[in-house]
């Protein structure tokens, strides 16, 4: 049992695993951004267009897509995903090929992606409690953004790319060695799922 856990732990620290996860999640996010962008164009031409993901009253990207929150900066949010995710994909692929990026570069990537992460959850909460509808592709963005953020943060703490004070940095690294990152992410995602079920459970199955 402990042997298996150790092996899983070793695997999770492996660059190939970390950057593969990042690559996979970023691809998912890019795919969702593509669909959402295409939908946004369709909705711009015809606000009543029937989208394939209008499953029921709760799962409805039409409702979400036509809200003001969906174009916070005057253009569909998904365009940001189209611009940002390819950068993550590039970082992941280059790192898989053995490139080591300078600390400053990784710090910048962390900062920008943290803004994206916060934005993704702001949108999630807006959809949950403001708009009153969820859209499947947006949920995929929420999930994949979380995973990319997790793997990027993992790398940057491990490689001390964040220019944090020594005690903070070594405490965080000890946290990684003890696998606390998985626990945090698992609880986080479980809480998100619980929140969705608590708010919309009955309607999701309707």
């Amino acid at each position, binding site marked *: 049992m402990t042997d298996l856990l150790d092996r899983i732990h070793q695997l999770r620290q492996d660059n190939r695993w970390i950057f593969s996860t990042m690559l996979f999640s970023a691809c998912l996010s890019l795919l969702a951004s593509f669909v959402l962008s295409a939908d946004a164009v369709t909705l711009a031409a015809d606000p009543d267009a029937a989208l394939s993901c209008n499953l029921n009253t709760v799962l409805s990207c039409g409702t979400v897509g036509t809200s003001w929150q969906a174009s916070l900066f005057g253009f569909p949010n998904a365009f940001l995903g189209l611009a940002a995710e390819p950068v993550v994909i590039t970082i992941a692929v280059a790192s898989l090929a053995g490139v080591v990026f300078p600390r400053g570069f990784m710090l910048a990537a962390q900062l920008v992606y943290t803004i994206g992460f916060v934005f993704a959850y702001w949108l999630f909460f807006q959809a949950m409690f403001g708009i009153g509808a969820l859209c499947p592709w947006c949920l995929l963005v929420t999930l994949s953004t979380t995973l990319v953020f997790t793997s990027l943060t993992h790398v940057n703490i491990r490689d001390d790319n964040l220019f944090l004070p020594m005690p903070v940095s070594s405490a965080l690294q000890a946290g990684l060695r003890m696998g606390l990152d998985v626990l945090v992410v698992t609880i986080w995602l*479980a809480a998100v*799922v619980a929140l969705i079920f608590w708010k919309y459970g009955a309607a999701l199955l*309707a």
Partner: protein
Amino acid sequence: MTMSNKTRAQRLRLEQERLAKEAQEAREKRIRTIVMISVVGVVALALVGVVVWTVLGAKRGQEPVAAAQIAEIGAVQGRTLVVGQQDAPVTLDVYQDYMCPYCGQFERANRADLQQLVDDGSARLVIHPLAFLDAQSAGTNYSSRAANAAVTVAQYQPDKLLAYNAILYDRQPAEGSEGLSNEQLAELARAVGVDDATIQRFGADETTAFVAWLTDAAFRNDGIKGTPTVKINGKIFGGDLYSAGPLKAAVLDAKGS
């Protein structure tokens, strides 16, 4: 002598550091095991939660909401509101919600056509006022309240039903807003000629239960997935609902065949 002492002290220190490091590693490993087991626990708990919830939900789903009967007077028949001649060749079912913007678009586009089809005896219009957007009215259950008022009008002044239906869509509140107040619902009813005796019956508990029941039944029994849904002689109309003409043409087509 001094040399060897130094080496011994050094060796001792190195040995102590090694032991401390090992102890630290063992401690981290112990914690890691606990953390990993906790992760498995959280995942298992979440899965169990979802499964239990789904099973309970499915059980709940099997028990239909108790049929709520109200007086079948006026336009109320079974769990529908019927307008027009009973023996009309075409039955036109409209599943709608007073909060749903598309239902408003549908009604405003087809209002004249529907009135004409009812008037000339081509179709009997069966209105299903559903309350499935109750969550979208900032806690005021607007869909239920508006449907409730429409059902009451259908019971006591059926000849005013279409006019009331129309004005509710003319003054349709934005989805997600608090909707119209009960006073505004009464005011609009008065504006289309509903009398005070009927208006005083708005919001009766039995009507509320009736609306809940017909909403539930529309989803369960009639397989309605969203509003507006329009059926011509029981078959879902797949054409353009949002401009005048196509629906009327389809109804006349069904009448002819």
